[in-house]
């Protein structure tokens, strides 16, 4: 008798296991739309969220495509939920890679927009943020994709391989929030626009968007952004061409910068109430292209080139800092943060009028340039008869 009861109980338990599997409100993969990227615009008082969702078709050959859907709402989340009415599926954000914000919203302040992405548990903190230079953010999704079938993944690839071109650097959500909250460092985000490339609309990472507090106040173009990354010590390679090498543009030389040996040190100096920032940039490079036919064999010619490059780079860095100081007044170089880290006591004294101090800050730049090799050719190609 007792054994039968035991057996029945065991059986009931075993059966109940079958019903208790899975989660409370599980979502099958065909019931959700996986978001690859999103763009946010504002239309009067309503937010327009445009999402690129991954559309998987099974069959003999599984096809991965993407579709663009937009939703409108009073808030971002409202707009996101309204998309369900169109797509019939709930959006799943954990795989989203990029978030494009329109200029208009950025000028009003981005903190309102990124709150949802930081607060909700689905989008990840490693989400790339971009500012659209086009009229609206969703315009970027008009692009033709190139390497990947998903446009957002294409843009992500561009951001992560940008280091060898070094015009922009990808900023992910948590880094941006850090920059927003940091004392003495203003945030920048890469800007994106569309260009025609071989008759196709392709996105281009055109430079950096400059923020003051959480508001967009201007853009730096690609060349300026490159210099910015030298100052921020984020250089991971890239080239130096034309006017960056020499004041005389006819020096037709292209240098390839190596990450190893290229560093920047920012040293603040505070003497009797005057703050000076010393920037020391070390650049290590190789000759990658030599169209001018210069030999650079003798010590003198190499020294002369070294001097010219140093002079040109110092000029470039100084000009950029001057431009940012006078036009934007926004400390995107993080000078204030360096002062705070290295001289906390001084920072406490000056932090309340850091805005004014930054605009009139004296900056000394020294560039130390080192050329390590000339790649495969020891001499330029000689042209005979």
């Amino acid at each position, binding site marked *: 008798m007792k054994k039968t009861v035991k057996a029945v109980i065991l059986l009931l338990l075993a059966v109940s296991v079958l019903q208790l599997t899975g*989660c*409370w*409100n599980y979502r099958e993969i065909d019931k959700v739309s996986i978001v690859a990227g999103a763009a946010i615009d504002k239309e009067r008082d309503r937010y327009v969220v445009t999402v690129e969702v991954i559309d998987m078709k099974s069959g003999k050959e599984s096809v991965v495509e993407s579709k663009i859907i937009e939703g409108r709402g009073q808030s971002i989340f409202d707009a996101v939920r309204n998309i369900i009415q169109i797509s019939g599926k709930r959006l799943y954000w954990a795989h989203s890679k990029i978030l494009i914000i329109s200029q208009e919203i950025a000028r009003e302040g981005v903190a309102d927009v990124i709150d949802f992405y930081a607060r909700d*548990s689905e989008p*990840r*903190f*490693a989400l790339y943020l971009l500012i659209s230079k086009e009229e609206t953010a969703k315009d970027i999704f008009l692009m033709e994709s190139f390497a990947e079938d998903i446009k957002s993944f294409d843009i992500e690839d561009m951001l992560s391989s940008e280091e060898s071109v070094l015009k922009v650097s990808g900023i*992910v959500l*948590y880094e941006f*929030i*850090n920059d927003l*909250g*940091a004392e003495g460092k203003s945030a920048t985000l890469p800007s994106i626009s569309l260009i025609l490339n071989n008759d196709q609309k392709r996105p281009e990472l055109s430079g950096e968007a400059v923020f003051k507090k959480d508001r967009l106040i201007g853009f730096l173009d690609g060349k300026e952004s490159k210099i910015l990354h030298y100052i921020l010590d984020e250089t991971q390679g890239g080239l130096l061409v034309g006017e960056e090498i020499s004041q005389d543009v006819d020096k037709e030389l292209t240098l390839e910068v190596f990450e190893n040996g290229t560093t920047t040190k920012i040293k603040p100096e505070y003497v009797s109430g005057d703050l000076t920032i010393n920037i020391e940039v070390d650049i290590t490079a190789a000759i990658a292209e030599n169209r001018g036919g210069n030999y650079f064999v003798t010590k003198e010619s190499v020294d002369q080139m070294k001097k010219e490059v140093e002079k040109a780079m110092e000029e470039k860095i100084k000009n950029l800092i001057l431009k940012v100081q006078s036009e934007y007044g926004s400390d995107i170089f993080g000078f204030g943060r360096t002062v*705070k*880290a*290295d001289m*906390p006591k001084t*920072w406490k004294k000056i932090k309340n009028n850091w805005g004014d101090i930054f605009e009139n800050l004296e900056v000394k730049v020294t560039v130390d340039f080192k050329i390590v090799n000339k790649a495969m050719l020891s001499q330029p190609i000689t042209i005979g008869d």
Partner: protein
Amino acid sequence: MKKEIISDPESIITMITFIFGSTLILGSAGDAKQDAWISVLIAVAMAVPALFIYARLLFLYPGQDLFDILKRVFGNITGKIIGLLFIWYAFHLGAMVVRNFSEFMAIVAIPETPPMVVILLMGMVCIFAIKDGIELLTRITTFLFPLVLLLILIVVILSLTEANPENLKPVLYDGWKPVFKGAFSAFSFPFAETVIFTMVFSGFKNRISVYKTYYYALLISAVVILIISIRNIMVLGQVGSIVYFPSYVAVSVINIGQFIQRIEVTVAMVFLLGGFVKISVCLYAACKGIAKVFTLGDYRQFVAPIGLFMLIFADNIYESTMEMLEWIKYYPYYAIPFQIILPVIILIGAEIKVRQETIQGTGDR
């Protein structure tokens, strides 16, 4: 009732896992921001004398737990009243950890599942474990602990790719005040919570083991918590102070070659074992206390009712996550009587009593 004997490594590992508990997920010394690691160091220094008190108590009366000691030192009535206070503390602490766990699951993984489901699933495991005695718990912990430690170390090494040492600067920017505030909270949560073990451990193999257990556990757990808090500061910087679960977020940003990513579930796994051990130990302490204070024989018969009561309590102690985090701010003050004041009084009483008993020759040591 059979005597429960625990070996040294088992007790050390159980205590370490108990200290990890919810700390690795909630983070410690959040007030101190980039100086949190200094707070942890100070908290460890503060914990050394506190842990000495707990260890000394058990050392004076080998083979007996806090409730036996209370009865011998303060007599039947007073001893039982103090015993009741400690039962409440163990019970409440267990419920808080259960709730931490269910809030964590609700926020990061399953927001729409009723919290009771998570609470019940976690609680039932603890109840079953404790029903089979503390030995079982220490053995399963000993078995799983190397895995957990390995996981923690691997994840820490992987997160070095995202670490930025600049985030540690400037040191002591806001002065010592927030650092001490952080140290105080890191002291009471988690290090001084080991006071619970005075109610748990009575069956050591030899007398000196109790010191060994407390101090090895403190040393190892302090090193790990220190590493974790430095990692969190270096990876997250400012963000670390605005998220509820800094470790979880710090690990979630790891992305190595698009290949090693989304490994934050490892943090949840560590929390799972830590939470399980902490809840079980608290439940064990509460049940054992009730059995002893009310002289009701074997504690095992209370495990299920007290455990279920703890789970229902956990579901009702806070209205929301905000309230839980608010309470964590006040928790150190609430815990002072249980972690410092009462243990000191008991130790003084015990020292006097032991000397009297030795003089009178009635001590059975």
